[in-house]
């Protein structure tokens, strides 16, 4: 019996091998066929969203494809109306925001969009039972109510100038999402929205497929079919772009460079608010010393980091606000000057010891610097920073760890941190620098405490006048030069390589967390195929 079955097995193996090679032969050219036309686009992204429900945080910064916010950002990050008919009316010293809604908008299931949906979305997000980790961004909201079918009024707890920028968050339909468990209902994977695209399939770990929404209020997109392939590995993504399987992909600088001489593809470098910084904890005897902070601020060679670590795809950073932002305080750039760093330390009484490391009042100039283990970019920044500091006589020991290890140490140990939310200067600066937020989860990780900064930050977020706000944020940035509680290192450009099949591709200024909403496909609904 057995010998027979083994012969059978051998035959099956042979048949199997033949079938495999036959299948392989039927393939050539097939994948190229569907890709000629510009009405279908396939892009490769690195991260898969956990959920597609705006109630749980999906698309909170806009460009969600499936949904629209009340407002939206254009390519210059200026607000323009989306589901609202116009920009909001601000009254009561910046405490009430009134939105008049666009009429005649329908969800993709045919039901009309009304003020009820807006109220439902915001109230659900703010509900304690909703597991939305970004709800802190709506902290200012006291109440939201509908006035008739086409008007919504937000009341704020305190005047909050950047509030309008928070209202790009997508609106969910109450008649669908309101009928189920907000945290695990089917809406989180099978969304219904008013947006330019309709989700046709989500094969987890493989891809998200969209088709154009024929009834979109902004006009039906010309790219009729849009697919986002989820490819975690950078090399694999680059390979699949090269085979023509993908029309575009996000790539790290070293791989993007390999497409530089490619005739049919263009590399887009998106500017970003994505910073890398070193926290200098106030409660550390060395890192909390203003002279040490000032010395480190000029001892560090930011240009070299941009050139070597980022391969040129980025810029030196001097604060959370990038140098090319309109909110950047001109003149606060710090040039690399090792001699000046040494002079600052010498004058402050930090004298070099026998091993070259400085000492003051028996305190050795050393502190640990943590970075997230497995994050190559942060590791490189940390090592470069420690090496620059060493030249000035400050001994920084770099250590890798997970957030669970790092978090309890943040009060005394330095951390190589990253973040960045584009748009308003309040977003990053308030959470990084406001002293009352010291030690509140990951906010103000350095326990920065500067009364002048606190005052300016409050003024900046409460004042409705652009001139007042500009003055306030100038003060913040100049104070940060005098007492740099963080050493900001770089702002990182995000690189995307895309086939030249469409015209007019642009990029927005991108956040640290650049998921599927970023890249040249932020406005794929406006792409025009080249003839």
């Amino acid at each position, binding site marked *: 019996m057995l010998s027979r079955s083994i012969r059978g*097995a051998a035959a099956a193996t042979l048949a199997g091998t033949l079938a495999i090679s036959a299948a392989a032969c039927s*393939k050539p050219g097939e994948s190229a066929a569907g890709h000629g036309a510009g009405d279908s686009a396939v892009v490769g992204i690195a991260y898969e969203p956990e959920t597609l429900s705006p109630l749980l945080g999906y698309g909170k910064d806009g460009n969600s494809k499936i949904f629209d916010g009340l407002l939206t950002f254009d390519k210059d990050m200026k607000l323009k109306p989306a589901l609202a008919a116009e920009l909001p009316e601000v009254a009561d010293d910046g405490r009430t925001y009134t939105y008049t809604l666009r009429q005649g908008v329908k969800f993709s299931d045919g039901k009309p969009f009304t003020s009820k949906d807006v109220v439902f979305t915001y109230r659900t997000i703010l509900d304690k039972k909703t597991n939305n980790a970004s709800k802190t961004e709506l902290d200012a909201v006291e109440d939201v109510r509908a006035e008739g079918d086409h008007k919504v009024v937000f009341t704020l707890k305190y005047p909050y100038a950047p509030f309008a920028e928070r209202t790009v968050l997508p609106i969910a339909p109450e008649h669908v999402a309101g009928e189920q468990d907000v945290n695990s209902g089917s809406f989180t994977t099978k969304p219904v929205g008013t947006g330019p695209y309709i989700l046709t399939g989500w094969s987890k770990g*493989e891809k998200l497929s969209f088709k154009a929404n024929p009834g979109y209020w902004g006009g039906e997109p010309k790219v009729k079919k849009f697919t986002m392939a989820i490819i975690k590995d950078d090399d694999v993504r680059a390979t699949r772009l090269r085979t023509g399987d993908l029309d575009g992909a996000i790539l790290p600088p070293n791989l993007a460079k390999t497409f530089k001489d490619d005739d049919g593809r263009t590399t887009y470098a998106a500017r970003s608010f994505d910073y890398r910084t070193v926290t200098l904890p106030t409660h550390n005897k060395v890192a909390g010393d203003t002279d040490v902070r000032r010395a480190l601020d000029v001892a560090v060679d930011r240009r070299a980091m941009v050139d070597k670590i980022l391969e040129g795809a980025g810029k030196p950073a001097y604060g959370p606000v990038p140098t090319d932002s309109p909110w950047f305080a001109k003149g606060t750039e710090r040039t690399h000057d090792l001699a000046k760093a040494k002079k600052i330390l010498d004058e402050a009484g930090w004298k070099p010891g026998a091993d070259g490391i400085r000492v003051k009042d028996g305190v050795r100039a050393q502190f640990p610097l943590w970075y997230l283990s497995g994050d190559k970019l942060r590791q490189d920044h940390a090592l470069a920073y420690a090496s620059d500091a060493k030249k000035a006589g400050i001994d920084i020991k770099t250590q890798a760890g997970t957030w669970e290890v790092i978090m309890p140490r943040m009060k005394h140990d330095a951390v190589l941190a990253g973040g960045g939310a584009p748009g308003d200067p309040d977003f990053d600066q308030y959470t990084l620098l406001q002293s009352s937020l010291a030690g509140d989860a990951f906010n103000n990780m350095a326990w920065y405490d500067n009364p002048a900064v606190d005052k300016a930050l409050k003024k900046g977020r409460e004042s409705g006048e652009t001139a007042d706000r500009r003055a306030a944020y100038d003060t913040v940035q100049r104070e940060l030069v005098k007492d740099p509680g963080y050493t900001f290192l770089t702002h990182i450009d995000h690189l995307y390589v895309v086939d030249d099949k469409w015209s007019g591709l642009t990029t927005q200024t991108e956040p640290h967390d650049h998921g599927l909403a970023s890249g040249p496909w932020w406005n794929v609904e406006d792409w025009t195929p080249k003839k």
Partner: protein
Amino acid sequence: MTHPGRKLPWGPMARMAGRRTLFAAPVLLVVTFGVFAVAAASPFDPVKAYAGTAGLTASQENLDQLRVNLGVDQPLVERWWNWLTSAVAGDLGDSSVMRQPVTDVITERLGWSVLLAVTAFLVAILLGTSLGVLAARRQGGWLDRAVSSAAYTLEAAPAFWLGLLAMWFFALRLGVLPAGGLTDTDSEVVTFGQVATHLVLPAAVLGVSQLPWFFLYVRQGVADALEEDPVRGARARGLDERTVLLGHALRSGMLPMLTLVGSRVPELITGALLVETVFSWPGIAAATVQAATSVDFPLLAALTVLATAAVLAGNLLSDLLYGLADPRVGFDG
């Protein structure tokens, strides 16, 4: 050589399967408790994992509320007991990290993983066995030397690297096979033909990464058996080479390989995790890794039960095969 008979010994085999199933229940119980205990002791924080990057700007109050909502502030035993009682009643709970019921998470993904793993396992077993027999037949011959050295190289090569290499060669250089996904990237329908072509590379890579073990075991086993008395006796009786090789040598040479079937299952599962990631295969792999790093108790427990069941089933299969191949062993274990 007496054959065990034309009929398979269904009775003893069924009894063995039954005994093992009964034994599996306490094993699974202990394993799930172990998972809860290990997960509770792990340094990962489920709340931070749930919040992701949004957690970096969230207030402590928001994070604390999440902790309560997710139920991760309960004591270990209570949490395990709650999970167990509802799981027995058929409710596997909600996966916090996937934001959907555990049953949905698993049913959406498991089928594709099983398809990949089973195909790869068949490739490894069939190819490994046939190459092993051929190599053992002419030990030191060119085929033996070529395949053996390739096998040692493959044993050392990570599946991840093999995947990249295969993709580079077949998808980029030759352009004959798709580089990843379950279907063509811009296609929304899942057809048999598309899945078949997309399955080739991942299954081949996973299969080839498992192949060396089967090949080396069979080669050694058959080579040893060729030296044994029954084989020499068979040759002396003038049986033709084919019958000697396949009927006698392979039969006793395969015994060690059969135990391997059971013990390779865990390796196959971990290998599948890597291969699925490289080829964007929509299987359970990504969910497994995420469940572990996010300490997603309900999902983690369900997946562990599945993996344990797969390993137990693999062991049962290998014992059944062993019993069939060598009647002296029987079906008592």
